[in-house]
């Protein structure tokens, strides 16, 4: 049987990535500072395959697209997803469209890897989530893991996918990113890090985890909480709180925003008749709306609420904590929804 071991979230990703790189010489990593950020991979695969880039995201993400078309399997890092703005044309008009433009004849097996999310006080240009935004563009797959085991398995699947995959790792789950951007070696700061998200059992040998399958993290009867990434852990905490008030909540971890696992969503909504989407990405025109629409389209009748980020994320920690979905807001929304 496949042995297990305990890994941190980012270790798991890099471990799976390392396995993929060992198995396939076409897999390579491109990005700013990857020589240091991925130093463990660097000393195993060398500088040709862990390729440090200048601060030229539009060029190297764009280059990733054709490199992938021409036979490589690039994992292109844009550090944090907020920086994808400067490379958006490569994503919007190239990565996402070339399969369609070529009449299905040419694929873009590229992974765009980026840290995302807030909760450590870095301000609104560095803490965005943007998964729902990217998901709007047809042709992209968008993956947002919430545990180390999922993160490794999904990274492997992303690399094996023949289509472009955006792989987002939340900074609160990833100790190295959190240290890089929030902690900086300090013991004087604290973050609300979900322990089960940041460390967990992982297989010794990775298997790709099918993209597009949600996981029901908790079964409940009264309402369904749907989320991704750190939000899943906030939901689980909220569900525990709610249980004390005799409200039984399901918690659904979508794991990928595109494709959406509709079946499990329908199932849960059918059962609980109440749906709350918890989304750290911006509220409007995003994941919460899509989940609502998908459920409505299927003819389900249910009541609905959402706990999302409604505005630019403020720098100051106490406002940030209110603006990002938190357990209190989830509980309050749940209780309100139970009353109608």
């Amino acid at each position, binding site marked *: 049987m496949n042995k297990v071991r305990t890994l941190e979230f980012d270790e798991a990703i890099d471990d799976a990535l390392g396995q993929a790189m060992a198995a396939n010489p076409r897999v390579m990593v491109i990005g700013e500072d990857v020589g240091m950020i991925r130093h463990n991979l660097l000393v195993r695969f060398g500088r040709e395959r862990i390729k440090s880039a200048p601060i030229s995201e539009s*060029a190297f993400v764009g280059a*990733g697209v054709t*490199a992938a078309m021409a036979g490589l399997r690039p994992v292109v890092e844009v550090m944090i997803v907020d920086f994808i703005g400067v490379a958006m044309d490569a994503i919007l*008009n190239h990565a996402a469209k070339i399969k369609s433009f070529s009449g299905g*004849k*040419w694929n873009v097996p590229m992974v765009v890897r980026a840290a995302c999310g807030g909760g450590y006080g870095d301000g609104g240009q560095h803490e965005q989530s943007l998964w729902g935004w990217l998901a709007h563009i047809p042709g992209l797959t968008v993956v947002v893991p919430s545990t180390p085991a999922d993160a490794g398995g999904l990274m492997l699947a992303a690399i094996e996918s023949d289509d472009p995959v955006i792989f987002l790792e939340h900074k609160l789950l990833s100790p190295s990113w959190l240290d890089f951007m929030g902690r900086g070696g300090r013991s004087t700061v604290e973050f609300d890090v979900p322990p089960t998200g940041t460390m967990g059992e992982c297989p010794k040998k990775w298997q790709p985890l099918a993209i597009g399958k949600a996981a029901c993290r908790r079964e409940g009867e009264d309402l369904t909480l749907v989320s991704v990434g750190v939000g899943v852990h906030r939901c689980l905490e909220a569900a525990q709180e709610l249980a004390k008030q005799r409200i039984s909540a399901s918690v659904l971890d979508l794991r990928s925003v595109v494709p959406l696992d509709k079946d499990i969503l329908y199932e849960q909504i059918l059962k609980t008749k109440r749906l709350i989407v918890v989304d750290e990405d911006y509220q409007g025109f995003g994941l919460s709306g899509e989940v609502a629409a998908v459920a409505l389209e299927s003819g389900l009748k249910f009541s609905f609420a959402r706990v999302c980020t409604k505005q630019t994320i403020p720098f100051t920690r106490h406002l940030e904590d209110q603006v990002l979905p938190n357990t209190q807001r989830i509980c309050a929304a749940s209780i309100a929804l139970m009353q109608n």
Partner: protein
Amino acid sequence: MQPDLWSLYRLMLYSRRFEEAVAALWHAGHISGEMHLGIGEEAIVAAVVSQLEDQDAMALDHRGTPPLLMRGVDPVRLLLEFLGHPDGLCGGHGGHMHLFSVKHLSASSGIVGASGPSAVGFALAAQHLRPGSVAVAFFGEGALNQGMLMESMNLAAAWHLPVLFVCKDNEWAITTKSATVTGGNLMNRAGSFGMKTMAVDGSDIEACWQSAWEALCQTRDNGEPVYLHASCIHLEGHFLGDQLIRTSRHPVKEMRKMTGPLMRSFAKMHGSNVRKRMGGLRHILATIQNIRTQMSIKRDPVVILRQKLHGEELQLKLLEDKIDTEIEQVLEACGLADVKVNDE
């Protein structure tokens, strides 16, 4: 090394005739949307493409027809693509700005400047998987103001990638004289990234071929980017139906439509002072005049090459007839046998 002018003439003339047919089909309403031709660019394109090797890649801009034809893409499938046919090169999904051929490692984009990153990616893959192969980026001079293209030049230089950057400088970007929005000079700009640069008269196929030969050798042998700057002219304007060309060809008719609103606006109460208004008006007239002048310049590379070959009228006639026949066969194969393609 010496170019084989006859085979270059063949490539260039075929491309010319093909695009003339495309123009006719477009005017006749068989092709939808915009249509940017490479008419006028054939020399630099032929010079480069004819010297590519099997595994070399091409990153194309919105004028992808000539390079793809010269690279050997099936003209029938290309034309079917323009016609939106399911048997087109891309199943009718791409259209003329989004042409892709896996076999020829060629990808286009309608986004100005995107051929830069695209060529870098191809070259990176070449470095890993097809050592000794190169990637060519084709783009216009206007594209050199697009950040991603400048970034790509740096990236190719920093990563020591075999990219040949080919700038087809027609001095215009749609209706804008590029010099009016460009600081410095483009040879310096490209050179400042640490690349070798070369400039050539893009209407002279022999010079183009020679430059392309040197540039490709350097790129291929040293695994370093090279910049090749070729002046050229777009005889059909920016795209088919180009308003400036229409105005310059049918000044009375087109200006009549334009003049009323223009003069009313010029004379409207409230606005800038007369000097500034006059400046605006002058700009418009100068633009139209400029295009007229440009169009009348005798820099058609196909014509110029034909003059070089002029001693051999018989052979020329044979070749030209053969190409006409081939184009007719292409049209026929596309189910367009009875479409008159020579009336605009």
